[in-house]
């Protein structure tokens, strides 16, 4: 099979769409996965914690 401009266009128009949809689903699952809720809540609050504003050390 000869790979020409039309082959690439067809590939981009079909698989380009599918991989973006698949990727969107992965992101949404990650974001709404119940186990991740606590991690995200901690992350959003921890930056406001001023009491411990220093680097950790070995």
């Amino acid at each position, binding site marked *: 099979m000869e790979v020409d401009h039309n082959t690439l*266009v067809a590939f*981009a*128009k079909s698989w380009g769409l599918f991989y*973006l949809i698949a*990727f*969107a689903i992965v*992101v*949404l699952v*990650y*974001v*709404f996965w119940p186990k991740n809720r606590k*991690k*995200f*809540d*901690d*992350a*959003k*609050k*921890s*930056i*406001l914690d*001023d*009491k*411990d*504003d*220093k*680097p*950790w*050390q*070995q």
Partner: protein
Amino acid sequence: MIRQLTSGERRSAATILVALVIVGLAMAAAGRADTLGVHGAIVFLYSLVLLFLVLSVIFDPEPEPSRLSQYYDDPSKVGIVLTMIWAIFGMGVGVWVAAQLAWPELAFDAAWSSFGRLRPAHTTGVIFGFGGNALIATSFHVLQRTSRARLADQLSPWFVVFGYNLFCILAVSGYFMGITQSKEYAEAEWYADIWLVVVWVTYFVLFIRTLARRKEPHIYVANWYYMAFILVVAVLHIVNNIAVPVSLTGAKSYSIYSGVQDAMVQWWYGHNAVAFFLTAGFLGMLYYYLPKRAERPIFSYRLSIISFWGITFFYMWAGSHHLHYTALPHWVQTLGMTFSVMLLVPSWASAGNALATLNGAWHKVRDDATLRFIMVASVFYGLTTFEGSFLAIRPVNGLSHYTDWTVGHVHAGALGWVAFITFGSLYSVIPWLWKKKAMYSARLVEVHFWLALMGTIIYVFAMWNSGILQGLMWRTYNDSGTLAFSFLETVIAMHPYYIARAFGGLLFLAGAIVGTYNLYMTIRYTPEDATEKAAGDLPVPGRGEAVAAGE
């Protein structure tokens, strides 16, 4: 400041600088009368001054080990000062070029001060000089605080700050001499481009190494944005700037791309520079300094993640909207248009997230000009991304493209979003870094805010008017089917708007000068904050002493 470097780091710094001095000498010798020779002299002098500074303390005693129990903020401080210097330079040149359009005699008949040379000096000065230094300085601050880890070493942040500014100096001085590779926002020639790759890879490696030391299990979302900024700008810069120099002793090079491929690569670069330099990095600032200043957590952390991936994946495909009605295949134009419209979703998710975070803290927005800078930035981010999606639609673009409407759109983003979020973040971080209770004068922050807001609004409205007028005049036909207006008539019609635009820019510049004065007075004359909170920014005692000198 240099004494904070360990003796090993001082030696490494001296070695790098000696190498650079030699490179500068070689460039000057090989380039001779070519502009490359002048750049060689600049590299030589720049590295020689830094080398002298390092050598003057090279045999001084080792720094205290207790420094390791503090964050390493010196590079951020220097970066912030450089940010404000570049702001005055870049915006000053901007006011000058704007005035040239209204009064062309302001070019003074010299080659170096012609519009074509000053314009890239303005764009590079504000985008890379002002924006880039602000991004580097704040990224070091945010990265350390959100990771609760000190920067991985003390030498590479300096390499990044000074190396990056050397690139900016080479770029801008080159434009005055007529050096350009004719790629918008990537005008600098091959040797400066290669140098930027070295600096940028060091930046990325430093970021990753510091993240690897983090104490927090989860990487806070601001760092995702900063990292996307660093990584994607590296990719864009390398791909767009692949070129073959005419000779190693001259500045001129030719891109390996040609024709419509060159145009597509350039606008893939150009639009993603907007996306990842002027958006992603500044969203990193927004997601950190907004919650900190408002003292409220971000409205929805999940939404911030969704918008992150939306922006990263949609923007990559939007560049072709710069090439509507060109030789670019029609379907590629349509692809760019579609993705540009889709971009509205993650963009408004971020803008909405920011405003929803402020919901319940509006009294703080009213009283605190710093927070108001951040609030206005979010509003302009929402407005500009909406306008951008709209302008990317092919028929709309048929009216707007090549007119001042585009210039108005860019400045709504650059002034209203990028500069506002930068000033808001800087006013938040300056007292923190220099351990002061507050800025020298809250009233001057207020003055800066209103100068900047008035300047932006005058600028953007002038360009909306002039751009739409220009677009309509270009497409008006008379009864016999020929153009109703000559080009000169459109230029005359725009003259009042050009004066208004230069005035708006002048107000914005005045605001930046007020801000710089306030920064100077804060550093120089404001007493240090001796309260508990500032003391909290100090080291954890014990355990740190075990770290050997030279680490």
